[in-house]
């Protein structure tokens, strides 16, 4: 009796690539990042050095944390467009309150609006079932209004950037001959915590479950509104922390400080492979997505592309990547 090996029918190359991308979305992303860095090096030979890397990481970190907010909310099929306003609010309040208050008190005051907005978002989305996009857009409008009123009450007292935040935002510490951005001290534990929460804890699993099939999750006894409220409060608090970090980096409090980060944060999460429909994705991809966008921004600046063209490009990227992921999933 001879054994005939059953040879599987050869899979077409295009399909294999698709399947590979669907299984390991991180590898094509890293390849894309390397390609962008190489292009940058070709356009401006010598630009990629130790200082440039430290700078890129410094600017990518606030974006990556905000993109983390988007990742977590997107896992449940939502989105959080209020992160920019929340970050701006906490940064602005910190910078103005530190003048007269104890740092700890100023920190608590700065985080208060973040918790409040997160709570309102969570209740609106979880209890009243408003679409997250509309809900967070609404609270961010209200937040901006409140900030404008607040600004007029503190206009006389002035603002300053706490030394600690400046150290955290811009400082570098030489470790083994390499300039190590201090912001990594905050970001690495934070990122590890988010990755761990999403992958290993009950709360993380609930987020995936809610996004995957909300009805089934509810029928299996999950209190939907509790999960959603906890999620949006977490997202808002993260955004508040980002604001504090960002003010240390930018060093100029303004009423639209973190606003320009909102659209890229959505784009970073989408590029990183998190599905905007919920249930699929992770934070590791998002971090690489944030790095890709930061390098891409440098590239576009070097090419002297105007702000308008940059926004068009971001929009097209979000659309294209979402459509591409949809195709890949439908194929499986």
């Amino acid at each position, binding site marked *: 009796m001879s054994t005939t090996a059953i040879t599987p029918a050869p899979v077409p190359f295009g399909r294999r690539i698709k399947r590979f991308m669907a299984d390991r979305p991180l590898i094509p992303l890293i390849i894309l990042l390397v390609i962008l860095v190489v292009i940058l090096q070709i356009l401006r030979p010598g630009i990629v050095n130790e200082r440039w890397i430290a700078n890129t990481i410094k600017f990518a970190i606030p974006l990556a944390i905000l993109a983390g907010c988007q990742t977590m909310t997107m896992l449940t099929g939502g989105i959080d467009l209020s992160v920019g306003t929340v970050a701006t609010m906490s940064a602005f309040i910190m910078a103005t309150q530190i003048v007269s208050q104890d740092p700890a008190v100023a920190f608590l005051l700065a985080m208060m609006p973040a918790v409040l907005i997160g709570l309102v978002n969570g209740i609106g989305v979880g209890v009243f079932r408003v679409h997250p996009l509309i809900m967070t857009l*609404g609270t961010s409008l209200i937040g901006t209004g409140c900030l404008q009123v607040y600004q007029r009450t503190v206009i006389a007292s002035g603002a300053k950037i706490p030394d600690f935040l400046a150290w955290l935002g811009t400082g570098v510490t030489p470790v083994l001959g390499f300039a190590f951005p201090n912001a990594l001290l905050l970001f690495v534990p934070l990122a590890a915590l988010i990755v761990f929460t999403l992958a290993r804890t009950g709360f993380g699993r609930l987020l995936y479950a809610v996004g995957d099939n909300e009805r089934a999750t509810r029928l299996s006894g999950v209190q939907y509104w509790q999960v959603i409220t906890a999620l949006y409060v977490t997202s808002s608090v993260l955004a508040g922390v980002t604001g504090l970090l960002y003010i240390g980096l930018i060093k100029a409090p303004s009423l639209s400080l973190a606003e320009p980060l909102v659209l890229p944060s959505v784009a970073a999460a989408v590029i990183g492979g998190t599905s905007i429909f919920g249930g699929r994705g992770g934070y590791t991809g998002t971090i690489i997505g944030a790095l890709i966008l930061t390098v891409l921004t440098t590239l576009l600046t070097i090419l002297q592309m105007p702000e*308008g063209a940059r926004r068009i490009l971001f929009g097209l990227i979000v*659309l294209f990547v979402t459509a591409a992921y949809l195709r890949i999933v439908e194929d499986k």
Partner: protein
Amino acid sequence: MSHFLRRQGWVTGLFALLVILFIATKIIQPGYGSGDFGSLARAVLPYAFAVAAQTVVVIAGGIDLSVAAMMALTSVTAASMMAGASEEYALFVVPFVLAMGFVLGALNGLLIVVTRVPDIVVTLAMLFVLQGAALLVLGAPGGAAAEWLKALISGTVPIPGLPDAVDAWLPKALLVLIVCLCIVWIPLRRSRLGLSIYAIGSSELAAFRSGVPVARTRVIAYALSGLFAAMGGLALTMSTGIGAPIPGPYLLASVAAVVLGGVALGGGKGGLLGPIVAVFVLRLVRTDLTLLAIDPNVTAIIEGLIMVAVVMFGAFITMRGRQS
């Protein structure tokens, strides 16, 4: 009769609310007269078109997040084309901008139909794209508008035979609004296409099985939305005389007015009259707050709170409706 009341009850209630608000305004500011009504109508104009744009899409079961950005783009396009050009040139600019809105709206619809990405993501991406395009057309507020266009919405409609006292309460802006909306809406409502739009919003599957061309209808609904948004952009240029590339607060306002106007966010229900009355209600609340000498920034907060509350209420009603 009860059917009629149930269908029109919401709009009737809104009208009653509007009348109450007018009375309240008159009490707060006894001098509130025809001139103030004229400026109210002018202020409502861009909002009303934004709401009309949103209404068409919501009835078809979708949502359009790019309304405000579309208005900004069409507004700056019109303003920059008319800058330094002759008065007659504007005769060409107006149809051009309207066609641009129609085509870009259709592009929204086509992307949704072809890529099968949900409407909310496609229009969000288009929001970035249109915003960027507006910044490319005009980096900072600027441009100009033809004099006859500006005159089109200022002042009142002179109707011979009517006493001036009545005439003064007929601002041109109101007439422009009514004419523009009716030209598009009434034929649509009576046509097969209008019925199809309601059908796909009500139940896409049922519509498909009854032979409604779902994809085509969806594209046309978005195209009409783009057309209304372009009217809104033109109205912005007409009332300010310039174009500004940063979108105004029209997106949330349009969604809030649609919900307040009795159009279900799920689609298939409601008409255009309700949302338009709702816009007047929301604007009049703002006027009242201003008349009460409340800080404009606080007014913005109160307005935001009202809109969020309205949207929450609407979502709550929809949820209850679905459960029962």
